[in-house]
């Protein structure tokens, strides 16, 4: 359905307590800081956040964690030099952690967006990640069964959008955005610029408009 162009606070109004929110970015590259600020203002809590890291410094995802809105983090790399808000919440037992290898995180969201029920993945075989999990040997190689990660909402940052909702990204800030956009019921994209329909080359579009429900323009 038609993509709406709104301000950040309006865009996040439908996020509810206990929602699963996919948050783009690899560190700060591609992190939708202003959308997260709006989510903090909006007030939803008890959230499950799916994101590669568990916040950096004091802004973006780190601020959401510091505000006590996150019940559970699903991520691949929570421990970083500047992940102090997550660290203290985690050590205080106030936040749950599901550690997922980075590629599984991406592929499980891709599966959600692609209508795949589950997939056999070689990653983590023989490691604690696979303990107690269903495995299968296919053509002599062992695989772990992995299930999709669906989001209620995805908050992503892209570079330029057209008014229809088509997105292009910039350099490695592309990271999880295109995958998360496919995996959530409601995708909200923060972009540096919105252009008219027809201004983006159809060959260059990375996320087609079908995956984008709300657009928020935030000058960089």
């Amino acid at each position, binding site marked *: *359905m038609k993509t709406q162009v709104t301000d950040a606070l309006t865009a996040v109004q439908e996020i509810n307590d206990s929602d699963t929110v996919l948050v783009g970015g690899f560190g700060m590259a591609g992190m939708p800081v202003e959308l997260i600020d709006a989510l903090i203002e909006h007030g939803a809590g008890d959230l499950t956040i799916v994101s590669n890291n568990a916040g950096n410094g004091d802004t973006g995802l780190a601020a959401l964690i510091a505000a006590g809105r996150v019940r559970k983090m699903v991520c691949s790399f929570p421990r970083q030099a500047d992940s102090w808000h997550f660290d203290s919440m985690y050590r205080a037992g106030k936040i749950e952690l599901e550690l997922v290898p980075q590629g599984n995180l991406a592929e499980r969201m891709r599966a959600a*967006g*692609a209508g795949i029920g589950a997939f056999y993945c070689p990653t983590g075989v023989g490691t604690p990640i696979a303990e107690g999990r269903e495995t299968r040997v296919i053509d002599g190689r062992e695989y772990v069964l992995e299930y999709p990660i669906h989001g209620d909402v995805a908050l992503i940052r892209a570079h330029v959008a*057209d008014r229809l909702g088509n997105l292009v990204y910039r350099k490695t800030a592309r990271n999880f955005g295109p995958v998360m956009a496919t995996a959530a019921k409601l995708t909200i994209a923060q972009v540096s610029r919105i252009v008219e*329909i027809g201004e983006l080359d*159809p060959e260059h*579009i990375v996320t087609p408009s*079908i995956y984008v429900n709300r657009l928020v323009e935030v000058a960089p």
Partner: protein
Amino acid sequence: MKIDELAQVIAADIPEGAYVNLGIGQPTSIARYLKPDSGVVLHTENGMLGMGEVVPAEEADVDLTNAGKQPVAELPGAAYFHHADSFAMMRGGHLDVCVMGAFQVSADGDLANWHTGAPDAIPAVGGAMDLAVGAKEVWVMMTLFTRTGAPKLVPACTYPLTGKACVTRVYTDVATFLITPGGVRVRETHGLTVEELATRLDVPLLAP
């Protein structure tokens, strides 16, 4: 009701801004009746959103076709993607509506549109099964009766299935049916009464 008229009826029912796949054959003609300001975006499974109408041979670009391999136009706001991404879009439930032709539709919404089951037929399925499981709404556009008068809306399909319990609406030359959890409801008829329809179908009908 002629095919063109039926195409207009279906076009008018497609919600504003919907992402829609029109199957090969008759459903392709629906594109002609979509209002430009409706914001409806057409998907073609060979890898495009924002597909325009079929174009005449002299405007054909061999690199730009619909799923039926006819040359088409590209509209502003279009996007190209590869086949795995295109079918992820379909299978993942992102298309609002797809409209397909059918050999048979059952009262439960089972769809048969890829194989007559004839032993010497060369089977060909294309993307029909992916659309059947993937689109949020699967609509069928067909004549209600075969050339020999046999109904195509049936208690159970006798042809091999394309998908189970996937069809939500059946648009035909003589009536439009809604497949609901409570049964097949006649939404409207074109020239026949519901009673006349009921005598020619083996499927119990709920009145409009």
